[in-house]
């Protein structure tokens, strides 16, 4: 799973968000390191919807702008959990090796 995909799923883990909300949350989660542009975001969202990891939650019109909210599906939550576990295991392995080499992480 690529980092933007991981961050999008993470952004949707606790609540449904609209496109711009996801963009803001991804920027916040990554500490400003990852910034999604609208076209890139929707390409990723389309793929995640196709894979049933994300679903459309509801639509609202705010200030005459259509906002469609997306939420994580059960399969999406499972995928995020598995990916988190995989990354955590990688991090733990890296830390062990660094400790052994005398480098503090």
């Amino acid at each position, binding site marked *: 799973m690529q980092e933007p995909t991981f961050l999008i799923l993470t952004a949707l883990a606790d609540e449904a968000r609209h496109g711009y909300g996801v963009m803001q949350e991804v920027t916040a989660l990554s500490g400003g390191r990852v910034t999604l*542009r*609208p076209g890139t975001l929707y390409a990723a969202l389309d793929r995640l919807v196709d894979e049933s990891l994300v679903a459309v939650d509801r639509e609202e019109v705010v200030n005459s*702008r259509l906002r469609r909210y997306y939420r994580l599906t059960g399969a999406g939550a499972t995928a995020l959990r598995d990916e988190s576990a995989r990354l955590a295991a990688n991090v733990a392995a890296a830390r062990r090796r660094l400790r052994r080499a005398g480098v503090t992480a």
Partner: protein
Amino acid sequence: MTRPDRLDRRCRWVARAYPGGARRVEVAATLADANDGRRAPRLADAFDVVWHGLVARLRGGTPSRRFGVWGDAAAVAVVQALVLQAATAAVLATRVYEKPASEYPLYPYRPGFGRGGPLFYSHAEAYVAVVAAVLGVAAAVLACRGRVLGARVATATAGLGVAAAVAASRLTGNEYTFGSFAARVAAGLSVALAVCVVVTPAVARAAAVVPSWWWRVSAGLAAAIALAAMLWDPYLVGGGRATVLLASYAMQAGALLVVSAPLALRAPAVSGAAVLLATGALALLARVVDGSHTDMAHARVLEATFGAGGALVLLTAAVVTRRRA
């Protein structure tokens, strides 16, 4: 006009790169949200939206629910018309007569010009036709293998390339020079690529609707029947007899019916009829664009009659079947 209004308008304009529907509206809104306080979206954001919008179009875009089964029917009609066109182009390409273009009469099928006379004014069109025919076959093969994007691009390029090249040959003159060759090829490719972006969502729908065996059967039958029809073309054999003319167009109409029947059997009645009507119209359009039969009013009437007649027969059969059910 206030600043937000101006921003919204510009964002909507940029989002037009996306296929129509709610997604386009949504992208425009998000683009505007991301650029609040500005008069226009950032260049990088706009480029990103245009790029992904075009990619979305090439991949088939967001399926539109507005047209439903009619959209499927029209989509399949586009595909089968293009496959037929490519098959016909393959036949035409085998009949190129190798003589300098300046020696050709105004009408390539003038009596006395003989069997095997040129339907193309120069080799350039023939080359384009051969490439188009190969692309047409490749499209069917790719579709069968599930390579949908490749199939879409190849199918659209094949049919539109032929139409554009032949049409361009009327505009650029009949002499075979490097300039006219380049002009024709460039025109064919650019028009094909441009229209490809518009046509591919329809082709994508067809790829989703039509099972792979349909592609194999229809491509094979279309090629075989178009070959037989063209071999019997009275303008090529120089006779112009009514029986041969009728047989020729009956076979072309048969080709349309054969390739449409599988879809009509699995789709609702109206869409089957829509397929035939649209196919007839497209075949007619292709023939008019071709230019080789434009002065033959009776030929056009015959094609239209067969297209409409076939649609009527199929529609009647479907209605009867539904009533019995």
